[in-house]
């Protein structure tokens, strides 16, 4: 790209920005133009990002509940996000979420009556066992994938969890 082109491009970009254009395509083959203004442009990608962020907030409603019916037109949230929105987002911005790598039943301790692997406030290491998820009669030890402080356990013992469901919120160190 020569300097002139670059200058023109900059000008174009400035101009588009000034006019709050969200998307602009031009294709000189057969001449195609496509312009989209910025305000409307909550794209699927943006939504997905938002959804991911919302998932990262503590939510007590992460039970396997009937899916909260999303409109077919919306790239809508996971079942879990239903009540999550209320939580202030920035407070959790620095939290790390340990998610369930499998479907099964969550247990906080190796067996009934025994002490929980971890409790809120504990400092944990990367690789430390945090809980058990039972699947097909197998007790799978779930290890932490980061080091930090357990801020919140997000699931009650005995509760079913799905793939990717948040189990613990950690404040990284």
């Amino acid at each position, binding site marked *: 790209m020569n300097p002139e082109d670059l200058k023109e491009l900059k000008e174009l970009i400035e101009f588009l920005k000034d006019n709050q254009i969200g998307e602009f395509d031009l294709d000189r083959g057969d001449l195609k133009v496509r312009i989209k203004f910025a305000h409307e442009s909550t794209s*699927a990608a943006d939504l997905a990002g938002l959804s991911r962020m919302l998932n990262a907030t503590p939510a007590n409603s992460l039970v396997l509940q009937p899916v909260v019916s999303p409109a077919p037109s919306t790239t*809508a949230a996971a079942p879990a996000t239903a009540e999550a929105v209320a939580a202030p987002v920035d407070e959790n911005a620095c939290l790390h979420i340990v998610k369930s790598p499998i479907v*099964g039943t969550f247990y906080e301790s190796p067996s009934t009556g025994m002490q929980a692997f971890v409790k809120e406030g504990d400092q944990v290491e990367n690789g430390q066992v945090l809980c058990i998820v039972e699947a097909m009669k197998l007790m799978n030890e779930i290890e932490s994938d980061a080091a930090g402080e357990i801020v919140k356990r997000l699931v009650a013992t005995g509760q079913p969890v799905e*793939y990717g469901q948040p189990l613990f919120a950690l404040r990284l160190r």
Partner: protein
Amino acid sequence: MFRKVLVANRGEIALRVISACKELGIRTVAVYSEADRNSLHVRFADEAICIGPSRASESYLNVPAVISAAEIADVDAIHPGYGLLSENANFAEVCRASNIKFIGPPPEVTRLMGEKDRARQAMRRAKVPILPGSDGILQSEGEAMEWARTVGYPIILKAAAGGGGRGMRIVRSNDELPALFQAAHTEAANAFGNGDLYLEKFIERPRHIEFQVLADEHGNILSLGERECSIQRRHQKLIEEAPSLQVNTKLREEIGKTLRRSLANIGYQNAGTVEFLMDEDGSLHFIEMNTRIQVEHPVTEFITGVDLVKAQLRIAAGEKLSSIIPDPIVLRGHSIECRINAEHPEKFTPSAGKITAYNLPGGNGVRVDTAQYAEGVVPPYYDSLIAKLITYGKDRPEAMARMSRALEMFVVEGIHTSIPLHRRILQDEDFKAGRFDTKFMERFFEREKERGQAASQ
């Protein structure tokens, strides 16, 4: 009847099973991968459980994940749909071990039918017409050559563990045989971990005709007539119809009778499809059996009035066929199905992406089975079928006219689909006249190419 059923599938067939369950008052549990979070099968099921990441091998094909989901949702039964785990005998066995009813035949039967040469021998013993060929596995090139001489060239070598065209070779003379035998053997060994081969007489221009059967768990078997599925591209069916123009009442009844006897011998249960090749003389030869519901089952539903998926559920719950289908089956009218795939119309490469406009055709005699919607996304991880468009008419011309106008009114924007291809096939004189076999699409594309060249000159 079951209280709660898990649907171990996605897309239109998951929604089809959910619909059947709803109509029978059964609660439904959907499972889904991360890519399918916003799918309609997730929305319309009573419960939905995420079982893994986008790739099918880590989610829909992940047996422990599916079984765990079934356990935590506390279901009575699992419906596998088609594809994915539907013909996986091991999965059916795990279901049995977990006290969950697998909606399909017992694992032993699935396994038998999965081994092509054993299935062939079993059907032969039960007097189902099969293609002339070897009695079981070929031990050597020499044995292959002997059988080939008995049967007469051309012959086709097939992998015993086969599927999808791999480990197959067409042999037209004695001279070719040794090299092709080795090639097929190596390919089969690589693809399936089993290089066993058998051989069959090869038919140059067969029709693909299949029979729908239902079998209850009390030894009763019903044949629901045939489907004509010769319109294929690289072994993928594109258009199916029922009844077949080539099968008359006499042949239909004969085959039906034979199948009832043979499947009783085998101990078949639930829905199944017996596939045949029809040779140039109009004789049918068994090739294989699919032990699940088929993509193209709606054409049979239209002409028989039987809801096959509801029948599957009721059979699996122990009901007798005589209570599910009390009256003799009467075929009425004609039905055609076009598979609407998300794929490039010329290159046939999958066309994943966001659907920006989606207008379904409706009205008299039109059925659409789909799990897609406007602003829905076709993920790149799974098969490309996004909808099935099925029409019904009092006869084949009416069903075809309806299909043409329905294809005209089916609008999909944002991705490529096979709709334009179907529109062209429906205009083809040979298709309209019913003059086709499994090589139809090759000739069709050839003709289109020629016309294109002629037009550009």
